[in-house]
């Protein structure tokens, strides 16, 4: 390492006041932690909402004690109305997709570790970075504020389909101001993520230290870079879509509302809008969003597995190209969400083909992980278990994607719990496992303390078994024709399926409770955990070259110089079976990628 003398624009002085240190901080590490805290709060709120929904689905007329305090009109006497069920479902989906699955793996870990992994002092535009978090936080507050409206939050689902997103309160509770708040929240969220993407892209391209060529970037850094490119494109389209919807709502325009539309016996004062237009704009963002949630997880899981396998990936380069291919193809497949929308059947065919093609890079990634794991003596710890769990969930959830990619099958399954099981496993649980893997792996570096391994492993096994108990039966329910988005199942043919719903609800309550173990471990270890060494996992990338936790300027007034590929495991060096990226030591290796 070498002393810093001068450096580019990411320079800013160390903060002195409490506010600048911990609240309006310019430090990417503090901002990363803020994003993590936001995601943590959001995840528990989202999970709590799912508990309420599951209890209602299993015991339809049961009063949930205290629920009336949340909404007098939505849950009179603690019994949920169908409309309130839909409102909770909407908020669950929105909170989880935007404020957890996008925020934690990408914004939280990316903010904290991307600059360190490239050897920079900070992001190039720290003020934009700070603004990115606070805009996202404001977006969260705006969304949550809709809980306090008289008629509650919007009930239109996280996809907010037109025309019900644009006609006002005539469409139901929460469809007035609730929708406007939802749209404003998501538009703000887009601004936050665009600012974040700007920083991520410039950090990766411009702030790498000497010797750190693009192909020497760790896989996690690659994943964040690819995700930021996706985010830049996707959020720049969702934001105008939200603006159009808000204008339809408040200014009387007719972008999405068709003419002569009658809702609740009232003819709507709109003319000629295209309801499909919203779906096109939304899903142009919506499908890449799935990969925005999962690709950082792929990077984190690869990073964690490599440190525990003590050997290199079968082909790091192919893994990077596959993640890039996923990002590119994600824009060509969005129409598979619209097979039942009434669009031209030929369009369905055009979207079906790339959807099947996208399984190729996904499969390549899984095969690379699997064959790299083959023959390795994997160190079993909480982080590596969750990384394995990620692969398991990604495969289990991904396999059903093959079926749903075909319009003829999707038409049958689209409105059923089969789809709910599919996306929860492949996008929700898998991404969550990626977040957990990252947490157990990087917690020592972020806090200077180790997490409790016993609690971590208990958390893994309960979550792993629990997630399968919840989401595999969803597939069976779907194949039996159990429709989704219904607040209760009163049809005769659904009655035999109620016990399955009750089983799922019990599993959801137990799995949710297991997350309290994680929360306890996180908070307890933060203050009472065993002190962590600078490199407790004997890992190689730059974040492990610096102190634990890293100083304000990341490398204590030094700049590392990179001499090696990122994952030099299975070599003989003076420190063991690995060599750090920043170590000038020459080592013999059988497996350096050419």
């Amino acid at each position, binding site marked *: 390492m070498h002393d810093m003398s001068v*450096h580019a624009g990411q320079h800013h002085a160390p903060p002195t006041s409490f506010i600048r240190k911990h609240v309006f901080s310019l430090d990417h590490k503090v901002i990363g932690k803020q994003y993590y805290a936001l995601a943590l709060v959001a995840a528990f709120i989202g999970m709590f909402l799912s508990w309420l929904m599951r209890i209602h689905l299993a015991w339809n007329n049961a009063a949930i004690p205290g629920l009336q305090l949340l909404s007098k009109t939505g849950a009179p006497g603690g019994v949920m109305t169908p409309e309130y069920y839909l409102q909770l479902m909407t908020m669950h989906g929105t909170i989880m997709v935007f404020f957890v699955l996008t925020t934690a793996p990408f914004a939280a870990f990316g903010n904290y570790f991307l600059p360190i992994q490239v050897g920079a002092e900070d992001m190039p535009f720290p003020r934009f970075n700070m603004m990115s978090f606070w805009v996202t936080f404001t977006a969260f507050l705006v969304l949550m504020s809709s809980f306090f409206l008289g008629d509650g939050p919007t009930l239109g689902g996280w996809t907010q389909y037109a025309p019900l997103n644009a006609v006002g309160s005539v469409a139901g509770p929460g469809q007035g101001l609730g929708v406007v708040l939802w749209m404003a929240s998501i538009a703000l969220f887009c601004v936050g993520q665009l600012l974040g993407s700007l920083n991520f892209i410039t950090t990766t391209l*411009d702030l790498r230290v000497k010797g750190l060529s693009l192909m020497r970037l760790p896989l996690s850094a690659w994943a964040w870079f690819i995700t930021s490119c996706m985010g830049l494109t996707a959020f720049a*389209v969702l934001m*105008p879509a939200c603006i159009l919807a808000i204008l339809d709502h408040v*200014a009387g325009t007719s*972008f999405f509302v068709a003419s002569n539309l009658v809702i609740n016996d009232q003819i709507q004062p709109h003319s000629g809008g295209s309801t*499909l237009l919203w779906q096109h704009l939304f899903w142009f963002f919506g499908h890449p969003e799935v990969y925005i949630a999962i690709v950082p997880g792929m990077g984190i899981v690869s990073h964690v597995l490599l440190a525990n396998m003590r050997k290199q990936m079968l082909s790091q380069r192919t893994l990077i190209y596959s993640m890039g291919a996923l990002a590119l193809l994600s824009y060509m497949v969005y129409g598979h969400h619209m097979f039942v929308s009434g669009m031209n059947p030929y369009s369905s065919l055009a979207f079906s083909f790339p959807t099947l093609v996208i399984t190729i890079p996904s499969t390549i990634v899984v095969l690379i992980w699997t064959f790299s794991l083959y023959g390795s003596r994997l160190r079993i710890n909480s982080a590596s278990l969750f990384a394995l769990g990620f692969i398991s969930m990604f495969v289990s959830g991904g396999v059903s994607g093959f079926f749903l990619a075909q319009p003829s099958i999707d038409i049958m399954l689209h409105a059923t719990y089969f789809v709910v099981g599919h996306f929860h496993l492949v996008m929700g649980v898998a991404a969550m496992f990626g977040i957990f893997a990252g947490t157990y792996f990087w917690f020592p570096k972020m806090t200077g303390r180790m997490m409790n391994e016993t609690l971590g492993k208990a958390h893994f096994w309960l979550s792993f078994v629990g997630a399968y108990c919840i989401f595999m039966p969803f597939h069976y329910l779907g194949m039996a024709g159990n429709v989704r988005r219904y607040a209760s199942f009163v049809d005769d043919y659904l009655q035999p399926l109620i016990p399955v719903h009750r089983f799922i609800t019990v599993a959801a309550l137990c799995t949710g409770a297991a997350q309290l173990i994680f929360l306890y471990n996180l908070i307890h270890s933060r203050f009472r955990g065993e002190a962590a060494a600078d490199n407790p996992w004997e890992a190689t990338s730059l974040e492990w070259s610096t102190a634990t936790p890293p100083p304000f300027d990341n490398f204590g007034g030094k700049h590392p110089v990179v001499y090696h590929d990122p994952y030099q495991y299975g070599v003989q060096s003076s420190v063991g079976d690995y060599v750090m990226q920043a170590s000038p030591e020459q080592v013999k290796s059988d497996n350096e990628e050419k």
Partner: protein
Amino acid sequence: MATTVHEPPQIDSRRLAGERHSGNGAGGGIVPDGDLRVAVEYSPPPSSTAIWVVLFAITMMFAAFTSALVVRKGSSLDWQTFTLPSVLYFNTLVLVISSVTLELARRRIASFMVVLRSQGESPARWLYVTLFLGVLFVAGQYVAWSQLRAEGLYLATNPSSSFFYLLTVTHALHVLCGLGGLIYVIRKLSKSVLRRNQLDAAARYWHFMGILWLYLLLLLRMKL
């Protein structure tokens, strides 16, 4: 068997300050002695990359609006065409001239930087002219909106007027951001702390606003 340490590359004297490179760590640019000043010179200023990222995001946004316009026009028969206010053509001319004056300013500032304030003429003069033209453009757009309002064409009157206001107002807001950029550059220049890449970034943004406006005018003429 391969060693993992690459051969120390030679410093290419042609790759010194002022030239653009693809990234700090790119290529074989690793200098084992870690002379940071060389590293800094090798590093492209992040604002050079950032401005392209910003322009890409803006392009995506207007692409979304454009596709919405095309789909919306084709989805129903309620689309009514109207004649664009003629002041828009004057505004276009103003914006094009502003790009020319900005380029004049860039040249002056470049030579000013070289001769280090030996000339009496303020290099910011053409920047002020550009700033004035930018304000004139926004004012001209306001005149166009007022004319349409006087004709009874409001945001919600017809989808065609909706898109007119949507596109022109969004563009004008972006132009205002560009004016903010120009003011930032002028302030930096007055304090003699302006960096070349900051000026270049502001200029690229401004020129892009001009190109975007030409595109929007064409779109509005063809579709409204």
